[in-house]
């Protein structure tokens, strides 16, 4: 009996040690998340400070005039149909600079995954990519952590003056410009010309009018939903929210990013209106799970009368075979009744940044400067309908007549996201999770905004990024 017992005990012991091994594996898996960039943990900031002067001395004489070298360019796909615009740009660049060779690394399309990858690469000391195409909301975070070269140390004020107003300011953190604007994006209102004509309705200039137009069209049985937009719990909701918030006269923070102002009447008005779009049936309940593709496909399949989306939505609605071909109009976004038209459009788009570990910053600068040239900006706008960032290209008749979207760009009013703080990701999370909760009806707009206020305050006051 004792023997049997001890054997049972020992078998239990072995089970236990087996289990311990399994546990170690699991712990390792969890902990590995924290260690993917630990390779250069021992290097200190002295390495950057020692390499920076060497770089600046080599290029300060003629910034962006290097004519040889190799560049690895990190960029997410820009277009989905036709020839890859990134390759077209590279070919045009290499034609002009035959001794600079550019290789392309395709980055993830999800902007947060993209950022996580490039941030871990650079913090791990990788010297590639040399130049990376990054979101317009990255400058503060990347500037603060030293993940990008301050381009204003190399490029003169005259270079920055050629861009459309607001773009360089958006790429500036702590007095230095970190990103060179490559192409821009902003929110537009897309509408069904044919449906509005049938009911003799004007293009809505206020949000209230958009709701009543939608209800008319829905009651007439012309369309299933009135208005689709991006309401999922993600960065895109922060963009949409910024538009309603600014229309209502609110801001997310004060200008110095020290206090949040999300529990204000303006913010509550914005969220209450967004929620009312769903409760009134103008927007489908599922809009709280919509990102751009879902909103786009609902509109392009003819199921919605209005769509809030970025500039590419026009081209997507005109793909042959789509039910909306020839039936789509575009306008600046509406605003609230009593405010001056047009409403605010949130700024999106992409900048070029340089990796501080790049071995060839001189050639990188040539490439970055070239992207702001008329040649490159024309390729982006004339051939691919992206909104150019250089003011002269943006307002040239050739670009304006290209498509209805580019034609109304000069008349929109822009508002950036509050990305001037290195803790912007946490700030944006505070916004989109709480707004999304209010949209789904699990909490009231006012309590959602007071939760957003307290999380935003934590984000603004915490030293590191926070939870």
């Amino acid at each position, binding site marked *: 009996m004792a023997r049997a017992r001890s054997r049972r005990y020992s078998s239990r012991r072995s089970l236990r040690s087996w289990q311990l091994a399994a546990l170690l594996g699991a712990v*390792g898996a969890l902990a590995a998340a924290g260690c993917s960039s630990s390779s250069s943990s021992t290097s200190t900031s002295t390495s950057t400070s020692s390499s920076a002067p060497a770089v600046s001395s080599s290029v300060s004489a003629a910034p962006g005039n290097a004519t040889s070298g190799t560049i690895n360019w990190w960029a997410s796909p820009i277009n989905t149909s036709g020839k890859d615009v990134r390759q077209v740009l590279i070919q045009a660049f290499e034609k002009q600079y035959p001794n600079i060779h550019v290789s392309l690394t395709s980055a993830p399309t999800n902007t947060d995954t993209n950022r996580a990858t490039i941030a871990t690469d650079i913090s791990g000391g990788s010297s590639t990519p040399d130049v990376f195409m990054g979101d317009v909301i990255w400058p503060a975070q990347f500037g603060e952590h030293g993940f990008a070269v301050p381009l204003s140390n190399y490029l003169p004020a005259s270079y920055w003056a050629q861009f459309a107003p607001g773009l360089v300011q958006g790429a500036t953190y702590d007095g230095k410009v970190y990103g060179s604007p490559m192409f821009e994006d902003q929110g537009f209102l897309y509408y069904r010309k044919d449906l509005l004509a049938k009911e003799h309705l004007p293009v809505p200039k206020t949000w209230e009018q958009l709701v009543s137009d939608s209800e008319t069209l829905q009651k007439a049985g012309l369309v299933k939903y009135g208005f689709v937009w991006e309401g999922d719990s993600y960065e895109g909701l922060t963009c949409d929210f910024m538009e309603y918030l600014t229309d209502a006269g609110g801001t997310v923070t004060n200008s110095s990013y020290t206090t949040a102002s999300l529990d204000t009447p303006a913010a509550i008005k914005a969220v209450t209106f967004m929620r009312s779009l769903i409760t009134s049936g103008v927007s489908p309940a599922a809009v709280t799970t919509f990102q751009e593709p879902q909103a786009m496909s609902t509109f392009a399949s003819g199921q919605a009368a209005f769509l809030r989306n970025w500039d590419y939505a026009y081209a997507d609605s005109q793909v042959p075979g789509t039910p909306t071909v020839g039936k789509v109009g575009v306008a600046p976004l509406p605003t609230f009744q009593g405010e001056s038209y047009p409403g605010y459009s949130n700024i999106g788009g992409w900048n070029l940044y340089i990796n501080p570990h790049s071995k060839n910053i001189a050639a990188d600068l040539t490439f970055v400067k070239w992207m702001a040239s008329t040649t490159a900006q024309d390729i982006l706008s004339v051939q691919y309908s992206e909104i150019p960032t250089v003011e002269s290209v943006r307002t040239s008749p050739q670009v304006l007549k290209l498509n209805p979207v580019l034609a109304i760009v000069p008349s929109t009013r822009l508002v950036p996201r509050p990305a001037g703080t290195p803790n912007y990701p946490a700030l944006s999370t505070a916004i989109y999770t709480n707004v*999304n909760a209010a949209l*789904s009806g699990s909490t009231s707009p006012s309590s959602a905004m007071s939760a957003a206020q307290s999380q935003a305050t934590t984000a603004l006051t915490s030293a590191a990024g926070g939870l």
Partner: protein
Amino acid sequence: MTTISGTADKVQATAPLVGRPDVNRKRMARLGWAFSTPALIIVAAVTIFPIVYSVIMSLSNVSVTGSGINLNGFTWSNYSIVLKNSTWHYALGFTIVYTVITVLVELVIGTLIALVLQRLTSGRGWMMALLLLPWSMITVINAELWLYIYNGVYGVADAILNAVGLGHPNILGTNTPAIIALMIADIWKTTPFVAIIVLAGLVMLPGDIYEAAEVDGSSGWSTFWRITVPLLRPTFALAVIFRVLQAFGLFDLPFVMTGGGPGTATTSLAILGYKAMFQNLDFGTGAAVATTTALLVLLGCLASLRFFKVQVGKEGT
């Protein structure tokens, strides 16, 4: 295989020359260490170093810079930030509830499936292959498929619920339905795994006990509860611990299907840790989330181990 036995022979052949048996044993031990060192080094590099480093990071003032991660001195602040954070409290509760419910349901359904499979005389191989399809599918693809099913505009689930008169419930956009939707996707995928483990346990059970039970006139029901279930306890323990480890690290399903939303309703601890580290670049707090999660899994597994052990002990007395 041959090389190992060959070496062992050689050692035995040289052993008598040395004479003293304890020296011989020492030499054998040294040889053993020499053989296992490469493996141990790899294990240390990929397992122990990251764990230790992660724990150190969670206890440091971490600054992430362009030239690497700097640890600037000891601090408890990462843990105090995590423990005071209301989203962490929610994520902890959500992860625990999610783990308990999915593991229990998987265990019940998995056992039922295993009992059916055991009785299948023909086509068992085919059934097992079919059954394993969801398990063999990559979780992210599985999540994308469920995303289509749950889609609020053209999803099948939405259409079915609408057809039976439940309207358009906005499955992934409302808190409780979103959580249930994730659980269903998880249970669909991992029940086959539990079924296979339980089936393996069933096949190993000694047949004579069942014969004895039959002779004693035991009904099927009491045979199941009094014989099958107690004998399967080690198997259940195995399945539960595997599943608890996996479910507690819930990441891919909410990452793909809900992004942690609506609001923060499906934010698991792993999603929270990911956001802290890779979106907010706050490696200290992120490491604290990872470390606390790991400790909790450890405790959870020890607790379930204790639970199964107590049962076995009772049986023995």
